[in-house]
């Protein structure tokens, strides 16, 4: 069943609606509920495939479904339609306005209604795709404030890596923070890259979602074995590599591999002068879990992140 979560009338002959697909058991079943949200950042599309594939696989065997699965594929439809990370017309990051306000402006109102709709969930996944600049290994990011509650779920999600990061006031306006403080355990998945779909990662996460559904007694069908993720809990375990100069970054390696300190990662070149400005090497030994995908870099642009071994 397709439901409208919230809708707003626009100035010229159009209604903006946030929709969800609710999948319920054929008969009976329990009151458990899993919610999948994606598209808060309009240029992150990895979650689109996950939403599609999840409902496709459920619908192949509806008899195994014992609880409710709610799929919200487009929290920011304007952004998705216009290849815009934020909310166009407002130049606003939607993941900085939660929990919103029913008395607030259009965006705050939409945010508040989304939160209201999600609060009865037993578990929520908010699927992101890094951004258009970086490719990420499938990972779950957890605010240290919610570590104990979320870690057991995150371990079942069939992702490669769990990153427990420090609290920050800025993150208090994310969907995940708002839900976690409202007692809805919410996992933030980051995987792949903006503006693209990486089917392999999508399939990997869908397997994890079925494992989580089994854990919540929402799914009684067979479930594949899930990966043991690497868990990082200390800030000093992650090394950041930022561009030392502005230029064009030529990537010579892939994310998801182990690198040694000093290993060649790529180079920053100047196509005008035809020279290499800087060889880029690994600042530490470990797992290269993030790599720059977008070639144009300013001094300071993030090139890679390494989980130090």
């Amino acid at each position, binding site marked *: 069943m397709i439901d409208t979560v919230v809708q707003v009338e626009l100035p*010229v002959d159009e209604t903006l609606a946030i929709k969800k697909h609710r999948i319920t058991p054929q008969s009976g079943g329990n009151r458990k509920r899993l919610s999948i949200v994606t598209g808060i950042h309009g240029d992150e599309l990895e979650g689109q495939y996950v939403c599609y594939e999840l409902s496709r696989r459920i619908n192949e065997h509806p008899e195994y479904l014992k609880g409710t699965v709610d799929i919200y594929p487009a929290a920011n439809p304007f952004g998705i339609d216009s290849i815009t990370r*934020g909310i166009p017309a407002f130049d606003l990051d939607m993941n900085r306005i939660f929990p919103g306000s029913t008395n607030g402006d259009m965006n705050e109102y939409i945010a508040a209604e989304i939160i209201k709709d999600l609060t009865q969930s037993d578990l929520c996944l908010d699927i992101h795709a890094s951004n258009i600049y970086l490719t990420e290994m499938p990972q779950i990011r957890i605010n240290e404030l919610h570590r104990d509650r979320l870690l057991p779920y995150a371990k079942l999600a069939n992702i490669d890596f769990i990153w427990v990061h420090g609290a920050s006031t800025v993150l208090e306006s994310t969907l995940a923070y708002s839900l976690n403080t409202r007692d809805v355990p919410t996992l933030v998945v980051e995987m792949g890259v903006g503006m693209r779909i990486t089917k392999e990662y999508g399939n990997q996460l869908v397997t994890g979602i079925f494992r989580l559904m089994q854990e919540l007694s929402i799914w009684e069908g067979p479930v594949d074995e899930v990966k043991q993720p690497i868990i990082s809990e200390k800030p000093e375990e992650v090394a950041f590599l930022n561009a030392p100069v*502005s230029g064009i970054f030529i990537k010579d390696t892939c994310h998801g591999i182990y690198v040694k300190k000093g290993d060649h990662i790529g180079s920053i070149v100047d196509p005008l002068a035809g020279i290499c400005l800087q060889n880029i090497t690994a600042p530490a030994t470990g797992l290269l879990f993030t790599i720059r995908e977008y070639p144009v870099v*300013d001094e300071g642009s*993030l090139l890679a992140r390494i989980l130090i071994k």
Partner: protein
Amino acid sequence: MERNTLFEIKALYRDNFRVTGFTFGSGDDSICIVGSMRGNENQQLYACSKLVKKLSELEQERRIRSGKKILIIPCANPYSVNIRKRFWTIDNTDINRMFPGYSLGETTQRISAGVFEAIKNYKYGIQFASFYMPGIFLPHVRMMKTGYENIDLAKEFGLPYVVLHNPRPFDTTTLNYNWQVWGTNAFSIYTTTTAAISESSADQAVEAILNFMSKQDIIDYRADEGYISKVVDGHDIISVRTKKSGFFMPETAAGKKVKKGSLLAKLTDTYTGELKDEIYSPVNGTIFFMHDAPMVYSNTAVFKIIQAE
């Protein structure tokens, strides 16, 4: 007057990114004024340019007090202004959400760090700020209630209003907040406009700053005394929101006094021209902010009214 490059990044295909400062007088870091940080803040830049001109004249007339140094940074983000993009060119981040900055971090963190390093020890700090929604404000000084704010000092600008508000989660990364944390008496000055230039409002802001400098004995200047500022708590400003979308036809203007029940604006249908809604004032008061774009979404705060006592 001395013109200095405070921060610089070498670029690939553009001229170097430079933050330029204008210094007047010498001695203690007395007062620093920062203009535009976003690409659409033309009025903020314009007001600073007038201030630079005025201070040059005062310096020639030896009316800057000895031992006092004044620093003006008309624009902390020329790259965005020059291409008419609101936020940072490559990654769309906001320099005014990156303070105090990080010199080894991402590009805009480096810019914020470079700027903050140059300005963090000033006794007084003023930023020409802008609102994210299109509209006209009454000129005012805005202060965050951080516990460090000095209201009596804010009144010395002689602007009509001093507005106090509670910090929101993202405020901790703004220049104003970090200035206050570092011991600077920090003020945000709002003139009437952002993208459009208002000559009279820029003049008023320049006069207010000169007035303030004169009262702090930084310059020898007989400023127009200005207003006896009214101090308003942000909570006491009444937002009047649209219930529908359409063409926005104001029946009043910023600065006008309104009575409870008086007509503030009409909304008309964008296709048929039919009246869709009328907006009435819920209180007696003064229009402090008015929306000024031709169309409006529903739930938009189109008026902010300061209630009459």
